[in-house]
């Protein structure tokens, strides 16, 4: 059994017939070829697979692709606009917010959504907001620096 799915990924329309059991993360990685979204666990804890669905951060390993039918998806590959990195991406670069980089795309996507909810979060609020994303390299301090940096450098520019 396959099901037709139509959605937009990083502003491009996509249409495929897929098995309902295909998880959104596998759809993005294997069908759309967008491998920037990673998989780190099976239980929805690690957050490496975080993408934006209609502007909200969700764990794409815990969503069937068919559930996202009709949605607008943004993955890490679609975050930079016109070749300019998003302030959160800039922040991660400036503040050494990553080491191995595996958790980073999910971490960035969660932070992007967090900053749409809280424009000037405290360090504690950033930490709470990123509870759903595990990092084993950085010890998080530089990640919180990065998100603070993004909050203070976010311009009115057309980012999310």
């Amino acid at each position, binding site marked *: 059994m396959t099901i037709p799915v139509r959605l937009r990924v990083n502003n491009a329309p996509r249409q495929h017939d897929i098995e*309902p059991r295909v998880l959104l993360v596998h759809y993005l990685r294997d069908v759309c070829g967008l491998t920037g979204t990673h998989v780190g666990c099976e*239980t*929805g804890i690690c*957050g490496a697979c*975080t993408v934006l669905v209609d502007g*909200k951060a969700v764990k794409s390993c*815990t969503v069937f692709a068919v559930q996202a039918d009709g949605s607008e998806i943004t993955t890490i590959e679609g975050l930079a606009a016109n070749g300019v990195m998003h302030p959160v991406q800039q922040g991660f670069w400036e503040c050494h917010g990553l080491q191995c980089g595996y958790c980073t795309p999910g971490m960035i996507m969660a932070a992007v*959504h967090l900053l749409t909810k809280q424009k000037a979060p405290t360090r504690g609020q950033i930490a709470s907001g*990123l509870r*759903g994303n595990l990092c084993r390299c950085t010890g998080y301090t530089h990640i919180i620096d990065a998100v603070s940096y993004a909050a203070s450098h976010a311009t009115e520019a057309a980012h999310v």
Partner: protein
Amino acid sequence: MYPANFDYVRPSSVDEAVALLQKHGDDAKVLAGGHSLIPAMKLRLAQPHVVIDIGRIATLSYIREAGGTIAIGATTTHSEVETSKLLREKCPLLSETASHIGDLQVRNKGTIGGSLVHADPASDYPAPILALEAEIDLVGPRGKRTVRADQFFVDLLQTAIAADEILTEVRVPVTSPSVAYIKTEQKASGFALAGVAVVASPSGVRVGVTGVAPKAYRATAVEQTIGNQRTAHAIELAAAHAADGVEPLGDIHASAQFRAHLARVNTRRALERALSR
């Protein structure tokens, strides 16, 4: 890991969903946000043959006030509950509890109906649902029935919902701000080792406890002991009864004894906080 194959149906109304449930019976599973079901399916602990996705039934997602109660549609997400202005003003306990569920991403996708029907003994909602004496609407082939919170949670992962019914609405009363939810979480998963919800009014308090026993419960011994006393001493004495009459769960994260202890500590703290508000 990868889920086993299944057939997917996406009804557009509750009646249609109920008809599908009737047709497929035990082979079917209802999908709302999917945050309890999909992890179980990925580990192949759950292998339903048919998944009925009620996530697109527009009439199931709302938060609205009607006649002194607030009605919340089943597919309303935790994040919508957390940030609802109406709930924050008129039933802040539910918003406060929602803010403790999982994480940002989980709250964006998980739903109140899905969480209640799954009835994980350590999920957060059952505590306030009990303390608020919420009402829960279930719709099935025989029509709609309303179940009181204290009748809803039957046993471990088991509720009053029948196999062919769908939870459609939760109704909570308008309360004063004298409420609180205090939770100690399991370090790895974020589930409650002991979560205590308190609703206080001049006439008395109601206490709901989750995470401690195979199902969430009303700590009636606490409620009766404290009555309408409000002193620190009374709180202390009452909270000591938070695990009376229950057989606490024990696992690698907390022994039964420690869970019971946390229930008492968090009850005391929740009472203190609720009464200070």
